[in-house]
Each structure stands twice: as C-alpha cells, then as structure tokens.
C-alpha cells in the first residue's frame, strides 16, 4: 500500500483509523476503451480526498463505479466493509453514498425545495419531515433565500449548491462531488470550498473529482492521481505537485525538472 498520512495532515475533524471506503483492484472498460485498470486505494473516515488526473484519466468512470452507476468488470468497492460495487445507484444511496453530477442535473420543473425534498424522501416517507429536513439542508448550503425559486432559475453556482443540498438530504456517509468547482468564478469557488469544509464538519467523508489540480490543493487532505486509467500516485497534495510522474502526466516530459 502507498504511504498513509498522519492525523496532523487531516484537518480539524476527528477521524477513526479504519478506512470508510475501500477501492480494491477495480478495472472497467467500455468495449476496447480501457477506463480503469487495477485501481486500489482507501478513503479514510472524515477526510477530503481529491481524485485528480488529466482529461481521460478515468476519474469519472471510477466515480460512477463508486456511486453505483457503473459496474466494475473486476475488483470490488467496500463501504464500511460492505461490498457496494454492482449494487446499483439506488442501493448505493441507501447505504450512504451521495453524489453530484458533473453536468448539473436539476429537476427543472421543480422548485429548490421540491428538488431537495426528493433527496429527503430517500429516507423519509412523509411530507412534513421531508420538508423540514430539506429546509435545513437548503439553509446549510446557502440557498435559504431561494427556497421556492424554480430550480432552472438558479445561477450555475446555485445549481451546484442545489446538487450538494439534494445529495446531503439523502444523509450520506460519503459524498462524491464531480467537478463541483469547475467553471465557477474565483469567489464562487472560494465559497464552494467553504461549503465543502462545512460538510466535512458534519462528519461526512468527501471525495472530489477535479481535473484542475490547483483548485483542489488548499482544500483536500490527500490526493489520488489517475493517469490513463491507472493509479499514478497517492499522497498529500504537496507531495503530488512535486511528484515528477504527476507533472509528466499533466504537462509532458519537458516540464520535469
């Protein structure tokens, strides 16, 4: 196994030593296109893990496999020791995986509150409790002023927040964020990072996919770098930016000092 890092690098949230999520030798290909090859890593409880790599590295496929939207060809994914790979997105959500989408998928005929209530209905059956939970999560995500606004009227960053709120309403143990910060203005990205930190203080483990590494560096505790479907490296963000393999993958050979 690659190097683990100590609690000092993890940040304020208390962490338990055991990994909450284990990715074990996961491979996945689409026809002749290989997306993931033998990818193995652990996600520690309470950490913010960055899943990074250049375009075409296989991040989204791996992300979808963890969320249950794809079934790995081989290998397995365990959540708190329980196998979740191959169970499908519904079961994964019920077991505690929440996710957002790279291209936002708001329910556009519904209001912000109604969108988030769909998430709350993952665990609640009655309308009033679902509404109460949704309102709490919406407030937490900074959309309190737009509770009854139609989802399609939100700004791009508002829609990203809505996706986070919707996923949080399902009460996940692990939250997967797919390029949540990409395409936002610097101030919006700052606010988004603050939201991610606040989510973590709720005891939720976070996996973030981004292809622009710079955005993530100040936020994540640890990074897993993918390149051409394989795990290239794993470690603290500072280690990753100095790692010659990572620099080569992103920029090409001539930038390796």
């Amino acid at each position, binding site marked *: 196994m690659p190097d683990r890092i100590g609690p000092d690098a993890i940040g304020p949230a208390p962490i338990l030593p055991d990994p909450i999520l284990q990715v074990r030798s996961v491979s996945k*290909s*689409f026809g002749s*296109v*290989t*997306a993931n090859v033998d990818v193995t890593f652990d996600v520690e409880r309470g950490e913010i893990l960055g899943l990074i790599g250049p*375009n*075409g*590295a*296989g*991040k*989204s*496929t791996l992300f*979808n496999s963890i*969320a249950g*939207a794809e079934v790995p060809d081989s290998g397995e994914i365990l959540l708190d020791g329980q196998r979740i790979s191959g169970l*499908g*997105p*519904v079961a994964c*959500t*019920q077991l505690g995986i*929440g*996710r957002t*989408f*790279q*291209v936002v*998928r*708001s*329910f*556009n*005929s*519904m*209001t912000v*509150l*109604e969108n988030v*209530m*769909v*998430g709350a*209905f*993952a*665990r*609640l059956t*009655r*309308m009033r409790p*679902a*509404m109460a939970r949704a*309102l*709490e999560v*919406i407030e937490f995500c900074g959309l*309190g*002023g737009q*509770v*009854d*606004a*139609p989802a*399609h009227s939100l700004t791009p960053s508002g829609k990203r927040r809505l996706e986070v709120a*919707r*996923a949080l*309403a*399902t009460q996940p143990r692990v939250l997967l964020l797919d390029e949540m910060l990409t395409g936002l203005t610097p101030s919006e990205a700052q606010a988004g990072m603050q939201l991610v930190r606040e989510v973590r203080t709720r005891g939720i483990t976070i996996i973030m996919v981004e292809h622009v590494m710079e955005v993530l560096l100040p936020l994540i505790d640890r990074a897993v770098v993918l390149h051409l*479907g394989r795990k290239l490296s794993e470690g603290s963000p500072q280690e990753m930016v100095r790692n010659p393999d990572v620099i080569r993958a992103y920029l090409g050979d001539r930038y390796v000092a």
Partner: protein
Amino acid sequence: MSAAPSIGAPTNAIIRRRRRELVVGAVLLVVLAVLPLPIDNVYLRGLMILMLLYAGLSQGWNILGGYCGQISLGHAVYFGIGAYTSAMLFTKLGIPPTLGMFAGGALAGLAALLVGWPCFRLSGHYYAIATLVVGMMVLLLMTNWDFVNAAMGITIPFRAESWVQLQFRIAVLPFHYVMLAYAAIAWLIAWIVEGSRWGFVWRAVKDDVAAARSLAVRVFPSKMAAAAISGCITGVGGAIYTQYVGFIDPDSGFGLPLSVLIALPAVVGGVGTLWGPFLGAAVLIPVQQLTVAWLGSAGNGIDLMIYGALIMALALLRPQGLVSLFGVRSQAGGDVAVDEAAGAVGVGEVADNA
C-alpha cells in the same frame, strides 16, 4: 411568488399552495353542483357531462403522462377494459355498474401494469409508440372476440330507474352528479398524490432519471405505480360512460381517437398540473361539440380542421398549457427530449474521460 420563505415554519409556499388548491376545488365543486339546476337545456347539460367525464379521464392520464412523464397514446385500452368489464358483468351476471366500475377500474389498473412491464423498459418516444401499438392490437382483438360480441358491441338493456344501476329513464341531471363525483375524485387523487412521496418521485423521474436514481428513486416501480393508478381512474370513467350512453363497441371503447381525446385536455390545459385537465376539458369539449353542431359531421372534416387549428394555436401561444394564464405554477423545461439529449451528453463524457 408569495411572501419571503420562512425556514422551518410549516407555512411554506408548498403547503399554502396546497391549501389554496383545496379551497378552490371545494368552491368549484359547489359551483358545478349548482350550475346545471337553472340550465334546463338538455344539450348544455350533456355538454357539461362530457366536460366532466373528460376532465376525469384526462386527470387519470395526467398521473402517468403528466406527473411521471410517460406519454401514453393507448389509454383507450384502459377506458375500454373498464367499460367492457362493467358492461359484461351487468349484462351477463346482473352485477350493478356501481360495483362493476370498481372491477373495471381494477382490471384496467392491472392491464396498465401488464403494458408497463415490457414498455417501461423503453424511454421517451419509444414508450409512446409502444403504447400506440398496444392500443391498436387490443382494438383488433376486441373487434374479433365473439365472447364480447366482437364488432357489434354491447347494448346495455334498461332495467330500472336506479342510482345503483346508474340508469335513468329521461333525466340527465343524475348523470351530471355521477360525472361530477368522478371528476372530483380523480382531482382529489391527483391532489393527494401531488403532496405525497410518490408525486415528488414521479416528477423527479420525469425530469431526470439518472439524478432520480442517485437519490434512491426506484424508477421502474415508480412508473408501474403511476400506471396502475392512471389506468384505474381511466377504467372507472369508461364504466360510467357506458352506463351514460347505454352502448359500447370496440371503436368507441378502444379507438385511437379516444386515446388522443383522453390525453388532449391535460396537454392543452397544462401537463403535470392539477388544474390542466379541467381547464383543457372545459375549453376543448365545447369547441369540439360546437364545431360539430355548427358545421355538421357530414364527413367533410371541417370541424376537425378547426379543432386541430385551435390545438396548434394553443400549443404555439401557450406551450405550458392554459394554466399558465392563471399564474398557476406550470412545469417549465425538463421535457423528455431535453433529458435524452442530456443523457447522451452524459454518456459522451464518460467515454471521453475513459
């Protein structure tokens, strides 16, 4: 939008809107109950009865086609099954239609599940085409099935002036109240469903299947539940209609034009809205009947052309349906074609990143 949202308080906009809808519904119920009393014109009373029938039928269609987004062009199948079940039970076994319509509704709901089982594996336009084909197949079967009198249809014999048998010698008024009750119950079911977990889940399925799944929505069972309720409401309407007209045959029970007529009020009034089917029926049925009355249905088809032109004009001017004229929340965006496009984009990205 109404006043500023109050976080955590139970007086949220959704709950206020639902209370308002209930009040408007109750007022409308009283108005529609009183309205035919001063109108002693048989033609106008008949017109109102048809409006109420189609309001109810279309509300049933709206559960599946509007809220859940599964456009069915074969709802006449459920109408016909309800109609024939009740008619057969009445003519062969003497079971009163007040019971027969529930048997018909149950059987129609079951049929909707049978149609849904294979067809819900198709999405978007393919589902609509499959329901169209099912409708044509069932029409053909009924036209050749001797047990139900094949193409001859079933004539309901007059037994007695009775509410239990839903038979009235001359009076039209009792049927007004039967249809009013039917339409009101269909509306109430839609109102209840809109505020339940099912209503939210169905609209999520309609807007974005992948996002719905990521929120633990079981898509296939959700569609099946919508289909069963939708088919059941439509089937009960078919049974009541048969008692009103006194006759049912394959064309009037299972014809494709009927499938379209069931869907149209909801589409014109506002798909996936509580009031859409009612508004649509209130506009379409009189126009349809009046063009026939003025221009005659001698086969020149001018009445249908005018009817068609009106629907095109409404579709162009009010794509969100007539409900949008009243400032009622209507469903914007998120239609099937857009979802499919987004789905295709999503697949492309996965492949790009692979």
